Structure formats: C-alpha cells, structure tokens
C-alpha cells in the first residue's frame, strides 16, 4: 500500500512537468491551429539547452532559464515568421509532413553535434529525498512540479486577466471574429508561438534534472504530449493537467507492476482506447469527428 501511495505521489509530481510540456503543444495547436509533430524535439532541444548551461557554467540548470526563456520566446517568433506562418493556411497534411521533417532535422542535427550518447545533469539535490509519513520523494521531482505549477498558474492568470491573454483566447476560439473586432491576429500568433516555446523551455529544464537526454527522445515525448492533450481534451487547460497526471500515474504503475520497458506500449493501448471510447477527451467539448 505504501508503494502504491508513493507511486501516486510521484505520478502527480511528474504529471505536473508533463502538463507543462503538453500545455505548450496545446497553446500552439489551439491558437495557431498548427499540428506540430516536432513538439517533442523542441523539448529535446530545451533539455540540451539546460544540459549545456550547467555544463558550461557549473550552476543549476534552473538558473539557465534566465537565458533560455528569452531565447525560447524569440525562437518561437522566428519559427512563426519563417515556417509556421506559411503552414497555417496550408492543408493539414502539409503541417504534418513539414513539422515531421523539422523533427528529423532536429534529431539528426543534435546527433551530429552531441553524438547519440545519453547525457544527464547532476545537481546538489539530485540524490536528496524528502521524507514525510514514510514516503520518500526526491527533490528534482518536487522542484520540477513547483516550477511547472508556477508557470501554469501565471499562464492562466495571463490568459484571463490581461488584454493580450484575452486576445489569445479570442483568436483560438474564433479567428475571424477576433479579426473583425480589431485584434492583430499575426501579433497574437507570434506571442502564442513564443509562449508555447517558453512552456517547452521550462519543462525541458525540469526534465533534465531527473531524466537523461538523447537525440531521439523527442519521438517519445511528442507521442506523450499528444496523448495527454487528446486525453484531456484539446484546448482545455484543466483537462491537460488532469490528463498529464493520469498518464504519469499510469506510467509509474505500468513501470512498477509490469515492466518499465512497456510503458510506450501502454500509451498506445491507452490512445486507441481514448479514440474509440471518447475521442473528444475528458474535458473536451468540441466535436472532432471528420
């Protein structure tokens, strides 16, 4: 029973980091309508960013966010200007192929630069555990969950209480209507792409403190994010958080009670099950039948 509780606690903490990853995808997909199959590889790049920072400076990867966040925002804008902008008006198939090509460029580019080896970061608190009611929780997961919680909270505040945030929600709900009331849609798209990459930057840095990175990890992360978003319901922030926690707990359970190697298989079964039983997700309202 104690192990069971431990798994649930760990699942919730990891789930917060997953939620942040998936939120980045959700923002870009919800606002720009871009189907981004390179999302996992963006996270992989952020993980390498955190790794490089702590390698060069010897400091905790979280400090690297002071550099990585602005870089991510600018990169988001640049990607919007040079790639996403052209894709948005193209048919969905083009999004899929072009972003998949992008993911390939990232994967093999990093392989060329860093080789295919696993890289990880060790911090002063890597081995420390927090002991409470017979439960042992390690600090990297706690900090990761905290960082995710702070970012998600500020994101929700931003989306609900600032004009730009409201404009983002308006555009994601109805692009034409937003244009009609005088919202500069392209500016909103740029900001949304930047914000999406910021979520990715924070989640990548959190991930690198407790997981090692390699160039092809993106395929796995991409799948993970999409499954979370589909499970939670596209466009719903609470749905994404709940979906992420469910997936993380499932991952822990499968890893502990069955076989760690088979978690990807469990995702796939889960994904097919969601699509067959409730394709609009837990919190989804939109009709998504073709």
């Amino acid at each position, binding site marked *: 029973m104690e192990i069971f509780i431990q798994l649930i606690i760990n699942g919730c903490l990891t789930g917060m980091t997953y939620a942040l990853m998936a939120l980045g995808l959700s923002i870009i997909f919800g606002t720009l309508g871009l*189907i981004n*199959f390179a999302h996992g590889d963006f996270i992989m790049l952020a993980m390498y960013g955190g790794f490089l920072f702590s390698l060069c400076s010897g400091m905790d990867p979280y400090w690297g966010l002071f550099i990585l966040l602005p870089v991510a925002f600018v990169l988001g804008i640049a990607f919007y200007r040079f*790639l996403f902008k*052209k*894709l948005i008006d*193209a048919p*969905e*198939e*083009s*999004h*899929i*192929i*072009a972003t*998949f*090509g*992008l*993911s*390939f*460029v*990232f*994967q*093999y*580019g990093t*392989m*060329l630069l860093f080789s295919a080896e696993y890289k990880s970061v060790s911090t002063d608190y890597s081995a420390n555990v927090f002991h409470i009611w017979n439960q042992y929780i390690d600090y990297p997961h706690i900090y990761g969950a905290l960082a995710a919680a702070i970012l998600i909270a500020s994101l929700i505040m931003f989306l609900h209480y600032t004009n730009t945030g409201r404009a983002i929600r308006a555009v994601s709900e109805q692009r034409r209507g937003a244009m009609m009331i005088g919202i500069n849609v392209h500016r909103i798209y740029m900001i949304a792409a930047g914000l999406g990459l910021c979520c990715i930057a924070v989640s990548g840095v959190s991930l690198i403190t407790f997981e090692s990175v390699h160039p*092809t990890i993106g*395929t*796995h992360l*991409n*799948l993970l994010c*999409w*499954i979370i978003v*589909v499970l939670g319901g596209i466009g719903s922030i609470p749905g994404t958080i709940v979906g992420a926690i469910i997936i993380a707990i499932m991952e822990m359970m499968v890893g502990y009670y069955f*076989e760690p*190697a*088979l*978690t*990807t*298989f469990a*995702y*796939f*079964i889960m*994904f*097919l099950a969601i*699509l*067959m039983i409730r*394709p609009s997700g837990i919190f989804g309202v939109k009709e*998504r*039948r*073709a």
Partner: protein
Amino acid sequence: MSTTRQRVQSFIKDPLVVFIAVLGLLPLLSSHDFYLKMLTLVFLFAFFSEAWNIISGFGKQFSLGHVAFFGIGAYITGILYADYGISPWIGLALSGVFGVLMALLIGFATFRLRAFFFTLSTIACAEALRVLVTYWRLGSTGLGTTIPAVNGVGNLTFSHEICYTYIAYILLVAVVFATYRITKSRIGYYLLATGGDEEAAKSLGVNTYRIKLVIFAISGFFTAIGGGFYGIYMRYIEPSMVFAVDFSVQFAVFSIVGGLGTIAGPILGSVILVPMSTFFRSWIGGLFTPIGFLIYGIILVIIILFLPGGLMRGITMVKDKIVQKINKG
C-alpha cells in the same frame, strides 16, 4: 470500344510502362555486386514508397508509422524461418495477413476522426511495436535474429544477387499494377474524392470510412510482405532496425520528392534518392551518417513549402510550357 490491339498499342506507348520496362533492363547492364545491391534497394524502396503512396498520396491519409507493417512482416517471416524452419514463402503470406489485420485495427479506431489522429496513431503503433518486440526478443541476449542462409528457392535464398534484384522488381511491378488498377476503378475515384475533400465526398454518398479502411489494408498488406522479404534479404533483423522511424520517413520522402498521388512519383523519388543515401552512408559514412537523414528532413520541409507537387509536378509544368511554346510558334 477499343480493340485488344489498340489497347496493347496505347499500353506500350504509356510513358509509365516504358519507364518501368527500362528499369527492368537495368540489372542486366552490369553483374557487379555493389551495383546490383543498390538496384535491389532502389526497387525495394520504390515498392515501399508506392505502397505508402496509395493511402497517403491518393487518399491524403498520412501514415508516418508505416514501418510498423514493415517490421511486423520482417519479424513474422524471419522468426518463423529462423526458429521454426518454416519456409519464408508461408511467412510472407502470413505477414500479408497480419499487415491487413493491423491496418484494420488502426483504421477502425481513427478513420472516423480528423486526419491527424490517424497519423498520430500510426506513429504510436510503430513505437509500441518496437518496444514490445525489443522486450520480447532482446530481453535476455540483447542480440537480433540472424537468418540462416541455405540456398534454395523454397528458402528464398539465392547465391546470385540478381535473383533478389528481380524479386524486388517483381514486387515493384505488382504494387504498381495494383495502384494502377485501383486508380482506374470505382474505389479509386472514391479514394481520390475522399483525399480531395472528405466532407464533399461524403455528401455525395461515398462511404469514406470504408474506402479508407480498404485502401489502408491494401497498403499494409504490401508493406508487410515487402518487410518480410527485406528481412530475409538482409539476413539479420533487430527491432531498432526494422521498426526504425527512419524507414517511415524514407517511404514518405521518396513519394513526396517524386510527387504525391502519382504512380511514377515514388519510383522517381527512390531512383534519385536511394543512390544518394547509399553515397552518404558508404563514402562519407562514419561520424557523418546522420547528414543523410538531416538532408531528408530539410528536403521534406522545402518541398512542402515550395513545390508541394514534387518532381512530377515540376515535370508537368515544364512540359506544359514547352507545349505552349510549340503551339505559339
């Protein structure tokens, strides 16, 4: 009604037929092993790309996990032969059956939803199978399966490379013929309508769901059989090799470069790109092997942004311009 003679005449004059016939003569040019091996790969990849193109090019349902079929074929054929001594021919037939079953499973879950759910679940399926097979086969030894080489037609093993080259060629011709028949049949027109505008096709009474299922099953069938042959041909199979994402991408890249939704496109793409990637692997090789795939990624993005019709579209454009000039002059 055209007579048989007229039909034969128009068949011979078809540029596609000429193109494929010329390809069929290429293996006779040289008996050099390296040359024949490369041709085998060109034919095989043209075959896979063509099979991919049926569902993804004509039907616009992008599968980026087609390697799942490929791997399942390679494993069924390979394991049956290596562990149980069952003839690869039976293995190939079984691979085809399993390819169809898997296509039906994925299609059943996703073809009623938006197109990208399909893409996503094909990727998920390929990844899931990769970890499952890794767990199943590599758990204890960490090694792949070596396929014994005993010459004989029953074992699908030959001492001359040219036999493999022609088997690959026959596979290619078979899939081209199937694609041709599909595009000329009622189901092919339904498929094109579905790919063009699914809602409109539906409103005209096309059962798009069933069409997509049937076509995906056909595509999976061919890919699985090809995968089985590939495993026997390579003599060694390993999950990270036969379930690698790289293959799915290659199938897509060859079709997209050549021209999506055309019969000649995938062949053209592989004729150009397979020798190129062989070059990257064997001459530059070593540390720079990733460059080949890096270039594939860049090609994908560039073609989608600037020449969505691929090379075939380019050829048609040039041809139209020449015809225009002739008509003017």
